[in-house]
């Protein structure tokens, strides 16, 4: 295992990487999160894998968590950094509740706070290695936004992180509409997750779907998708590859 980066000038402004306390690359990572607005709120999906490089190291990582009463947070990227973020948010929500004055932070406020946190850490050259998705409903207002590890942030009707940007969003752009019912929303998310499962090597077939509406939020039990691998081309993949083992 090599910790030091190869090319590093002697008089580097930041000092040698070997004795720095920064995340230079992630260790245990989660893959895509996909989320969309539907008729009554927000739906979000993420699998439960935690990869150590290309080793599937953890298989029941919950990557979607409720934040306060109105928000739901999904994360891909470094799992430990995500847990650190959850610690910040726990404190934020606790202090917010302690005022006990009838005001509360909604999804917009939490998203903005997260954006500040991510951007401040990138300014210190010490990023939190995540792409975050924040969804929620407050006062009948649906909210769905995302932040990257360098602070790039935006809102949209549907968002996805990592591979989801390549594979899920084209499907979402084609099939998403304002009046998706809960059932259709789940079907659409499952379609995205299935494509990701087939094509993203670090995706695993154990996922959760989370729902947040004005009434509250639920995060489903882990379940798996029906898959079909019996295509003839899959049966003997090395056949015809002469000289290969």
């Amino acid at each position, binding site marked *: *295992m*090599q910790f030091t*980066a190869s090319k590093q000038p002697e008089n580097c402004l930041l000092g040698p990487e070997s004795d720095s306390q920064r995340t*230079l*690359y*992630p*260790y245990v990572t989660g893959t895509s999160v996909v989320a969309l607005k539907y008729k009554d709120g927000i739906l979000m999906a993420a699998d439960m894998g935690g990869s*150590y*490089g290309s080793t599937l190291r953890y298989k029941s990582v919950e990557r979607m968590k409720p934040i306060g009463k109105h928000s739901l947070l999904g994360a891909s990227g470094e799992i430990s950094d995500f847990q650190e973020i959850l610690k910040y948010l726990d404190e934020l929500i606790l202090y917010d509740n302690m005022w006990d004055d009838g005001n509360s932070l909604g999804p917009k406020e939490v998203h903005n706070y997260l*954006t500040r946190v991510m*951007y401040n850490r*990138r*300014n210190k*050259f010490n*990023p939190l290695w995540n792409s975050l998705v924040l969804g929620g409903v407050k006062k009948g207002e649906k909210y769905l936004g995302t932040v*990257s590890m*360098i*602070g*790039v*942030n*935006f*809102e*949209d009707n549907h968002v996805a992180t990592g591979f989801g*940007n*390549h594979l899920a969003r084209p499907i979402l752009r084609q099939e998403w509409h304002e009046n998706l019912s809960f059932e259709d929303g789940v079907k659409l998310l499952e379609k995205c997750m299935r494509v990701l499962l087939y094509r993203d090597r670090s995706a695993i077939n154990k996922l959760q779907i989370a729902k947040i509406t004005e009434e509250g939020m639920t995060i489903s039990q882990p379940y798996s998708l029906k898959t079909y691998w019996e295509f003839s081309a899959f049966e003997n993949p090395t056949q015809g590859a002469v000289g290969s083992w």
Partner: protein
Amino acid sequence: MPKEQANWSPYDNNGGSCVAVAGADYCVIAADTRMSTGYNILTRDYSKICKLADKCVMASSGFQADVKALQKHLAARHLIYQHQHNKQMSCPAMAQLLSNTLYYKRFFPYYSFNVLGGLDNEGKGCVFTYDAVGSYEKVGYSSQGSGSTLIMPFLDNQLKSPSPLLLPAQDAVTPLAEAEAIDLVKTVFASASERDIYTGDKLEIVVINADGIRREYMDLRKD
């Protein structure tokens, strides 16, 4: 464990083009609404235009997180200015503030390419154009961002601004009428989105004149 990520960079380029044209009694500021990273489109509806004061609007492209930070910083500074002076900041004052703000981060710059447009104290259109570290110049029209290499020569050709080398200095505002300027801006973006993959989806046009601020939209190529 092998290192899979490329070396981390604090910057990204989220693309986008901005244009501003000043006339005798108006100013047109426009930008597309696409936000990209690499070959991905992150969103097709992100406004790059920010109203900084009653008669002052900024369009910015580059790294979205820096642009957002810059916009919020200027908004806060403008609030303080209003508290202290009981009036809106003028466009030339905001132009200087923007320059100072950018230069303040000279050695860890905001990766943002801005054009600032509005009306000056006489009600005449003015445009200020910047680089990422705060050099700026008052001009009659300008373009910044990923499509600027396509747009700028086109504007030069159409607007035939008097040379800045002429003595005595000649006014740089364009001779066009407001409606003509808006048409020109539309054409310019339709053209840029043909060749620049970071420009497209939708065009947002802000027009400032004596009546106030007005917004218009036009669809652009979505591919």
